[in-house]
């Protein structure tokens, strides 16, 4: 009995500390601005409204920022997979290359973004990619950022495909590349999908590069920063809710991979 | 050391029966082997005894003390786990000393008892190693030492030989037997391997689906199996089981009709009707004088194993295995088992012995 009480109390405390902040931001997103400014603030919504979202979508910044975030996310997924798949395959098959790749990408994974963002900004100014309306510079930066994330997921997935299958395909007449394309990649499909989702999420959430490289043509994260600092709580909260949606969906899809440790960088 | 007693112990997991009405008295210093296929409830029995699970009903006593509601560490029960459960981060010495340490046995006494049991189990040379650096046999002995060092009232062993390779298994079996005799520690030994149960157990408990089928000495379990299940489980190969019909002193098996002696239990009880007849593979012989139940052998199935020769045959429409001693090159096409060697069981779910 005492044990059950402990579980209920502990579970409720954990759930509340996670859910309360989320509930508050959703409350602010769906209540009128006046209520968000009230003191003392309301814990439960007094009046529900979609006005904050209408304001957002009638602005210039939000549709543009949304478009930019989706564009950069999509492009980053494509470019990251293109670069990382061969590297991850090599790492899964050749232990010597794996050691060097692993070390390089661990460092890349923990490397401070600001130390790349500043020189990239200076570089992009010269190349005309800085603050680009199509966020081309940001796309390159996000690709660099996402490569390690994709690498560790893909390597885990490719390692699970036995090398004997590739060898058998070659004996059956496939070229080495054909064996990888027709046998290994289809079998590693779940991890490729997981890597794609993760990369999109990394780009969607990314704040530092977006803040530094896109000063006026802002994707959603710096736009939210700007709204939260200078805008109204209702519209900022509505934008936060919009940003939450794909993140929550993707994390739910990735849940099995997260639990297996492949995404936290803890697996080797 | 103490006797142990189980009285009507039951364990249910929702609707699933883990153990049903288990009653048993283990004498002080006795080794009882619990034998059965996986899922028969033998592991549940061990875990209930150890206190890792709680019985749904029933009582367990060690000596005079009722223990079924006590937490594991208050039961004075030690256990050797199937995979040994050695503490990987501790040396052999620390592993063996751990139960003493937890009971507040410190300093010189801890040292002396640890060293003593380690010497007794031939572990003196590896005391400072970690379990990861030991061979399978050594790990097994560390697990034994850790369980024995605190001189438990009851000693539990959960398939302790199943992780050893076949050759080592025979050695360790002998070793455990000798050790248990020497220390006279009351032991409950769980296994699915009948040769382990038969060679180690003072008595054998055969279990099936949570229920006890038979509790007896190894010889009695072999010679007088209490049910068709026990008959079909014990022996390598196990007893052949055939469908038969009893009518007024005559057994009909396939097309054969065998007259039962006047004092045969079936006749005495006048139990007419279908039944199951069991006959051990080694009960058959090629001696024409043997008479009784005849089997036709398929000579192409002959397997010469050296000390014995196995062959497959038929009694009516049913398959039997026949075992003849030594190397038999020219397998007889016709073998027979005497009527006295036939076991009779009820042809129902219980399969209870009739004779």
């Amino acid at each position, binding site marked *: 009995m005492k044990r059950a009480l402990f579980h209920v109390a*502990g*579970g409720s405390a*954990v*759930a509340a500390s*996670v859910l309360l*902040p989320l509930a*508050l*931001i959703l409350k*602010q997103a769906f209540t009128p601005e006046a209520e968000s400014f009230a*003191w*003392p603030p309301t*814990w439960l919504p007094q009046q529900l409204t979609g006005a904050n979202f209408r304001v957002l979508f009638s602005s210039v910044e939000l549709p543009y920022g949304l478009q930019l975030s989706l564009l950069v996310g999509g492009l980053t997924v494509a470019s990251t997979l293109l*670069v990382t798949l061969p*590297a991850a395959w090599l790492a899964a098959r050749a232990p010597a*290359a794996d050691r*060097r*790749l692993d*070390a390089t990408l*661990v*460092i890349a994974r*923990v*490397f*401070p973004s*600001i*130390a*790349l963002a*500043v*020189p990239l900004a*200076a570089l992009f100014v010269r190349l005309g990619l800085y603050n680009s309306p199509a966020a081309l510079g940001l796309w390159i930066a996000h690709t660099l950022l996402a*490569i390690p994330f994709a690498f560790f997921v893909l390597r885990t997935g490719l390692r699970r495909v036995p090398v004997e299958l590739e060898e058998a395909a070659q004996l059956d007449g496939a070229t080495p590349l054909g064996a990888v394309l027709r046998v290994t990649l289809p079998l590693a499909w779940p991890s490729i999908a997981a890597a794609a989702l993760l990369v999109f999420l990394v780009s969607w959430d990314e*704040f530092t590069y977006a803040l530094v490289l896109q000063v006026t043509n802002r994707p959603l*994260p710096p736009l939210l*920063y700007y709204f*939260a600092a200078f805008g109204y709580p209702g519209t900022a*909260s509505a934008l*936060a809710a919009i*940003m*939450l949606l794909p*993140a*929550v969906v993707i994390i739910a899809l990735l849940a099995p991979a*997260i639990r297996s440790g492949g995404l*936290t*960088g*803890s697996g080797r | 050391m103490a006797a142990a007693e189980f009285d009507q112990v039951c364990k249910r997991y929702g609707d699933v029966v883990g153990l049903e009405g288990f009653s048993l008295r283990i004498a002080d210093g006795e080794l009882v082997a619990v034998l059965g296929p996986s899922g028969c409830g033998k592991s549940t029995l061990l875990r209930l005894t*150890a*206190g*890792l699970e709680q019985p749904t009903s029933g009582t367990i006593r060690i000596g005079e003390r009722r223990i079924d509601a006590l937490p*594991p*560490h208050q*039961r004075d*029960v*030690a256990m050797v*786990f199937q*995979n040994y*459960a050695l*503490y*990987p981060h501790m040396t052999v010495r620390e592993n063996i000393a*751990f*139960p003493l340490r*937890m009971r507040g046995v410190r300093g010189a006494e801890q040292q002396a008892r640890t060293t003593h049991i380690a010497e007794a189990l031939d572990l003196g040379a590896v005391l400072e190693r970690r379990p990861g650096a030991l061979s399978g046999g050594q790990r097994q002995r560390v697990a034994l030492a850790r369980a024995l060092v605190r001189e438990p009232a009851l000693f539990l062993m959960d398939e302790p030989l199943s992780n050893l390779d076949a050759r080592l298994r025979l050695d360790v079996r002998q070793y455990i037997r000798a050790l248990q005799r020497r220390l006279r520690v009351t032991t409950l030994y769980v296994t699915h391997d009948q040769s382990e149960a038969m060679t180690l157990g003072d008595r054998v408990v055969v279990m099936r689906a949570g229920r006890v089928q038979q509790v007896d000495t190894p010889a009695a379990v072999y010679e007088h199996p209490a049910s068709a299940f026990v008959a079909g489980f014990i022996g390598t190969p196990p007893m052949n089981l055939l469908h038969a019909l009893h009518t007024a002193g005559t057994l009909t098996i396939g097309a054969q009709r065998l007259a039962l002696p006047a004092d045969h239990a079936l006749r005495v009880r006048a139990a007419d009707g279908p039944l199951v007849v069991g006959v051990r593979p080694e009960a058959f012989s090629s001696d024409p004088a043997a008479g009784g139940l005849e089997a036709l052998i398929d000579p192409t199935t002959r397997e010469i194993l050296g000390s014995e020769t196995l062959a497959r045959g038929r009694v009516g429409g049913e398959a039997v295995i026949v075992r003849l001693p030594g190397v038999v090159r020219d397998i007889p096409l016709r073998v027979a088992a005497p009527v006295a060697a036939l076991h009779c069981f009820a042809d129902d779910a219980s399969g209870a012995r009739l004779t």
Partner: protein
Amino acid sequence: MVALLATLLAYPVLYAVRLAFTDPLTGHFPSLVNYAQLGRDALFWRAVRNNALLPLASVVVELVVGLALALFLSRRFPGRAALRALVVIPFALPEIVVLTIMRYIFVRRGYANAALAAVGWPALDWLTPGSALAWITVVLVDAWHVTPVMFLILLAALAGIPAEIGEAAQLDGAGPLARFRYMTLPLLRPALLAAVLLRGVDALRIFATPLVLTGVEGVPVLSSYAYHQWSDYGNDAAAAAAALVLALASVALSVPLLRLREAA
């Protein structure tokens, strides 16, 4: 492939090195003039100090909370699976969303002070630049966001400890505390070490949390200092110089992490 990846990552770093060691006025290379300027800036030294202490405090909080959560959610009870999924949510949220939420909670007229007022306590200035409380708020918000990572690593490590080990210890006479001390903790040690190192290096990059919650000068860290130099003064060179200090620390801390992975 390795070479291509290395080039892709190395080129901007080399460019940063050139920026940091070039005198922006004369174009002279190599020059330490940028670092001399940083050395004279009190804000830079505050950033250095915070960049050492904030990650340390954050990792300690994450470790304690993450371990407690992992131990709690290793127990068997109804609703455990749902709670396990729930606990991971903060990490699933975009950082800037978390910070937006937290700002509304910790501003002067925010929910935290409303909760205090409800129980009759005075309001606190959770985010006042330079205050000790603001520092603590930054640590707590950062820990709230990333503790799930620690939790997941430790939960997996706990699941990797065979149940028999705990059962054997129970039979050997160990109560819950003794089992934690003599079994769980030592067996968890490698995972704890890996998690602390991983999170430690990761935490060095702390940027948005202090920037969004307290502004550039509130709780400065090296990343926000570099951003400040670049964005407010247009000083590429000073920004690159400060960012390189951080990069160096990050690579240096990666070495034991890599050793650990080699050993694994």
